[in-house]
């Protein structure tokens, strides 16, 4: 028991350490940015970095760009994957095995495999430096995994549920939409989170496609604090904190769905 707690505490400290670093840096007053103290909260904490970030920098523009792109990718991901996953899980149709296999295969593509051809295509189509370019790239990255996750989850839901619903007079669509989809909520949540995070936290694709600084997403903006001759640590800390908070809250609120045995017992009795 004690060793269990010791292990949990140790790893929790390791997990929290970098987060605490970011918090601490964001609160440092301007003259102590390069401090060599490991204080939990710096002495004379200051919110100046946050104020500068919100009033003098393009932070809100980056956030708007990121939100727009991420939401578009999430909607595409969840809508397409929840349907296609069900099709792959429950029905036989020509091209099914090929389709499943190629979904898996895309997971083995290095990032450049799609990025480079797409980059050249986007240049030729004049879509470089547009939201559409980024949304298309991220959807292409996220969709195969989302479909695969949904399919895997539907596979664990017994078909007897739909059969029962059909006997009770449900149409095929209603059986899917009203019985199975709600049961697949944990997988839907994972799919949504995954699609959202794919776009929200992506740097290397954005760096090539969104070159105009008015289109920058948060990762490009944050990197720019680090890239200048001397890193603007205070602004970086404040910005990372504000980027992290919504994602982390989302993640933690939904984390119980991540591990959940919702189907357990729904067929029993």
């Amino acid at each position, binding site marked *: 028991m004690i060793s269990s707690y010791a292990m949990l505490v140790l790893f929790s400290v390791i997990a929290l350490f970098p987060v605490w670093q970011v918090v601490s840096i964001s609160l440092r007053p301007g003259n102590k940015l390069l401090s060599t103290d490991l204080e939990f909260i710096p002495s004379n904490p200051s919110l100046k970095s946050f104020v500068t970030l919100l009033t003098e920098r393009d932070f809100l523009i980056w956030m708007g760009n990121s939100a727009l792109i991420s939401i578009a990718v999430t909607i595409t991901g969840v809508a397409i994957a929840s*349907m296609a996953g069900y099709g792959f899980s429950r029905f036989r149709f020509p091209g099914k095995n090929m389709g499943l296999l190629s979904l898996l295969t895309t997971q083995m593509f290095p990032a450049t495999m*799609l990025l*480079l051809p797409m980059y050249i295509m986007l240049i030729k189509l004049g879509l470089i430096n547009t939201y559409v370019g980024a949304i298309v790239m991220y959807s292409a990255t996220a969709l195969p995994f989302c479909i695969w996750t949904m399919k895997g989850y539907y596979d664990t839901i017994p078909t007897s549920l739909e059969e029962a619903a059909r006997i009770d007079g449900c149409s095929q669509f209603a059986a899917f939409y009203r019985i199975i989809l709600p049961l697949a909520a944990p997988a839907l949540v994972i799919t949504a989170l995954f699609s959202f995070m794919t776009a929200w936290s992506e740097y290397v694709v954005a760096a090539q496609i969104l070159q105009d600084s008015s289109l920058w997403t948060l*990762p490009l903006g944050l990197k720019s604090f680090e890239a200048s001759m001397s890193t603007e640590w205070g602004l970086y800390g404040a910005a990372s904190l504000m980027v992290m908070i919504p994602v982390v809250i989302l993640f933690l609120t939904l984390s119980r769905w991540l591990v959940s045995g919702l189907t357990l017992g729904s067929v029993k009795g």
Partner: protein
Amino acid sequence: MKQNRSFIGFLVIPAFVILAAVVFYPFVYNVVLSFANMNLYKIYDWHLIGFKQYVKIFTEPSQPSFYSVLSRTLVWTFANVFFHVVIGVSLALVLNQNLKGRSLFRTMLILPWAIPQYIVALTWRGMFNYEYGAINLVITKYLSLPAVEWLKDPVNAFIACIITNVWLGFPFMMVIALGALQSIPHELYEAAEIDGAKWYHKLRTITLPLIRPVMIPAITLGVIWTFNNLNIVWLVSNAGEPSDNTHILVSFVYKAAFNYYSFSYAAALSMIIFMILLTFSLVFMKSSRATQAAY
């Protein structure tokens, strides 16, 4: 289940259309590119040159050489996935007990996964700073050891990348393992206890075999993701510093494509990475299915 063509079409055709346009077509284009001579200056004026790019990769000396990058990639992948699985499964086993504060611990332990990767990378890069970074401060102040030059030495910079990636990757394996553990019926353990089984018997004969079907695909995915993880190496080592000595294959390709604009060379390298991973996955999934019969 009863077949209904229009319903099936409604479900899967949108996915097929989108994937054809944004995945299949670029893939074919990449294959063509890898046999051509395109770069930034020949973007409209390129032609096929056969296997020359591939020959160039395998035989022409480059800085860094293909083989050194390949072996670094293998070390990178193995070290990361090994620690992800060991730490993740151990924590899942601990969390699966009836402990006080279990959900609080789980929440804290998922945190590294919840934080966007690029922030993780940039933050750790800051923490590895020689003078002001938290890692060296902890090493010198609390452990009384000499400070480590993390980012200027090729080996240390590479280790720094691995540490960062281990940190961010273990929660995924933990969550997957925890899910698998929770689906194991309690009756099995009760039956084993009646038969007088010790904890390690239960671990070896019930727990591990039963989480195996879930862990094998997760590990396969983990290997692929790690092999292809561009963010961490690119951002922690700041594009391969010192002097392109920390690259793994995928960051090397990215640099070839977008810093040197050798499009066809990069396309050929992408193909090689893809082939390596495809071979690995086929062999790994097949051999793990073969050994599964042992249980």
